[in-house]
């Protein structure tokens, strides 16, 4: 078997194992959340009998291991259970929200990743001259502002003052693709600004790092254009750290946007999760945790595989 293929398969297997470990962690973690689920459902006026009844109904009196196995096996079959707080089926409630979250993340990623890499390359090309400084200053400013402030400021200008985009990003299944794009314009803009700087700066730093290498010098002596050297010779060798940072930011776009969802009233996963954490709705928290972990680990494996493929020394070990 080709060593790279072996490495890739190894990573995939490890990823699955990791997912299993994460499921244990999530299960245990939700058990130590303060507060009792039964108490949280019944609220203030709960009698001891009602509490005991509900506990046995929910299976809370069974040993933890049994509950874990039952939970995992039904989750694998796509059954995430029902929410304790409102009795709705979790899989169907999450479905739409997960789609919304992925949609927003995808829009933001489609803008921010190419833009960040392009700006990074540009900054290296004009290193220490005004384009570099300008790009640096703008991206630093955008990253230094608390997200909600960025959100409010953008909302104030683009929605309240100029009326260009809606301030409430309310999307539903009846809307066309363009209508949806219009609805998520503001949150996508904020998210782009939030993740842009990190990726751009890492691109710049990583490329500068390899610009010192002998082969770049060779390329320069060959008389190639500077931008070609950066994009064709330096960039591929700087891919590992860039991919890592891109991956971290993609994961952030999926799992870390609670604040943006609150500000723009976007019906995504984050808000859903926070609401249910507040209600101690353990099945929902577990389900969301599992989904987030899957997305995260998936992106991780992807980043690792790309890093392996991009490093000739790893691709052809001595």
């Amino acid at each position, binding site marked *: 078997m080709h060593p790279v293929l072996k490495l890739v398969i190894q990573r995939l297997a490890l990823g699955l194992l990791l997912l299993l470990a994460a499921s244990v962690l999530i299960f245990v973690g939700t058990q130590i959340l*303060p*507060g009792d689920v039964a*108490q*949280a*459902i*019944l*609220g*203030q*006026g709960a*009698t001891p009998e*009602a509490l005991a009844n509900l506990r046995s109904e929910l299976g809370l009196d069974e040993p933890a291991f049994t509950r874990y196995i039952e939970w995992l096996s039904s989750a694998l079959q796509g059954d995430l259970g029902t*929410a304790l*707080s*409102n*009795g*709705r089926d979790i899989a169907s*409630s999450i479905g*739409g929200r997960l789609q919304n979250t992925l949609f927003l993340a995808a829009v933001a990623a489609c803008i921010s990743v190419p833009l960040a890499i392009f700006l990074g390359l540009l900054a290296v090309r004009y290193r220490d001259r005004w384009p570099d400084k300008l790009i640096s200053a703008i991206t630093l400013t955008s990253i230094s502002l608390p997200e909600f402030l960025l959100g*409010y400021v953008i*909302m*104030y200008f683009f*929605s*309240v003052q100029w*009326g260009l985009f*809606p*301030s*409430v990003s*309310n999307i*539903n299944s009846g809307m066309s693709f363009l209508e949806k794009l219009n609805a998520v314009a503001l949150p996508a803009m904020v998210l782009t600004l939030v993740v842009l700087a990190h990726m751009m700066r890492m691109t710049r730093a990583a490329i500068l790092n390899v610009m010192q290498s002998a082969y770049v010098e060779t390329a320069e002596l060959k008389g190639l254009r500077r931008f070609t050297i950066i994009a064709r010779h330096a960039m591929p060798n700087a891919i590992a750290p860039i991919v890592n940072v891109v991956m971290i930011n993609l994961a952030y776009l999926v799992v870390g946007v609670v604040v943006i969802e*609150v*500000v*723009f*009233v976007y*019906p995504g996963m984050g*808000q*859903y999760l*926070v*609401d*249910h*954490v*507040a*209600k*101690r*709705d353990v099945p929902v928290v577990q389900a969301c945790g599992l989904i987030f972990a899957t997305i995260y680990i998936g992106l991780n494996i992807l980043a690792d595989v790309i890093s392996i493929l991009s490093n000739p020394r790893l691709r052809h070990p001595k």
Partner: protein
Amino acid sequence: MNDEFRYLLARAARGSLDRRAFLGRAAALGVTSTVATGLLSKAVLAQGPRQGGSLVMGLQGGESTNSLDPALAASQVPFSYLKVSGEPLVNIGADGNLQGRIAEEWTASPDATEWRFKIRSGVEFHNGQTVTAEDVAQTLRRHSNEDSQSGALGIMRGISSIAVEGDTLVLQTEGPNADLPFLLADYHLMIQPNGGFDDATAGIFAGAYKWVENEPGVRHVLEKHANYWDSSVGHFNSIEMLVINDSTARNSALQSGQVQLINRVEPRVAGLLARAPGIHVESTAGRGHYVFIMHCNTAPFDNNDLRMALKLAIDRQDMVDRILRGYGSVGNDMPINASYPLFDESIPQRQYDPDQARFHYERSGHSGPIQLRTSEVAFPGAVDAAQLFKESAAAAGIDIEILREPGDGYWSEVWNVQPFSASYWGGRPVQDQMYSTAYLSNADWNDTRFFNEHFDELLLQARGELDQTRRKAMYSEMGMMVRDEGGLICPMFNDFIDAYNDQITGWVTNPNLEMMDGLAPVQMWSAE
């Protein structure tokens, strides 16, 4: 005002001339747009409600955990959608008098222990079934049942039997209860087919609007129930409620015209929002109050001198000014204010008095910091209010240590658990209900751990007392007890502050609860 302008005004009011065109033509006639707008809204009001159009609301207080089961409603969004889609037995009007809804009329036995409600005929549920007395009885039975976990359980406890005689509902109460019909106006008690025993979350009610789409925590869409019995309300064709929990986002949505009606405007920005063109901010004095509660049975708060010291060490007027920006009134360490029937105006107002506070504090013998738990969710501005409290108490030599708790879990882990915390009460329609909910020794939500036998006796006596003068005297005595011995520090009563833009009109002041007691969407109408 010349004839041409009058003609334009009439056309605009009828809607055959649109608003923008009207303002333009008015300007051409030399009438400023402020004057023209004012005259137009008057003319529109005089014209009477316009039918049609759709209403979009932006509301705070919705979560993705919300259920359509009226028993489980606790926050503003479920309250709003129940008020719009459901129909109760009775409503409390803006004037404080009862209005019959499903109940056409009602009578009490002379000792106020038996109440008979005649059920209105020809009222239809959203699924086409006719509302019967049996449906009403079943609804009340379900809310009496411990399993339903109903928010109205406390109200139903006093009812000993629920029976049906033809088209009449007969209720027997355990003791005399002169206020029973007021209690039945509670928003949990929306009538459902077979009382909701078949499927409480089906969303089938008898109100003006029926369900189209329900996405908890995101949006709720309702449309006009074509066979609704009362043609005087329900003017919009459809109502969409967007859950917008963030206050700045809510204000922006109103200003950019994405929504026409919002609740819970922050007092701090209400004045600023009102200055925006085309926005009306309505503030309504109500019965809701912001409080700091001490457990009377837990050290150090089991010492009345310490409690009194803390009560004297809070600057009420300063809180009304800074936290409510004047949109409210000072409290008097009792849960009752002038919005309640039978309120005794002669009870003296407690003032901020650091010297007296110091005197009581020293007499209590306590020393060291006193921990006060607060959170953003306790009430709007609760963290700020705690800081003001800390400052004013420091002047009396009392050291308050603020512990800010996460909003997540505050109501289950802190309120009614920790001995000193910030909280709020929405108020109740009558004094009896407020006291029974939180001050009776065995009340479910006795969150100040107030145990006083004499108080309990008085409360039961007053409940059956039909002589209003004697009843008022009893309530006055009870108020004084809570004020001077209880664990309640009540610095302020908040106004409800709602706002709408000039695409809709027909606002009426209603002191019962926010948004015209939740009825703004069914009573207001489209202005364009």
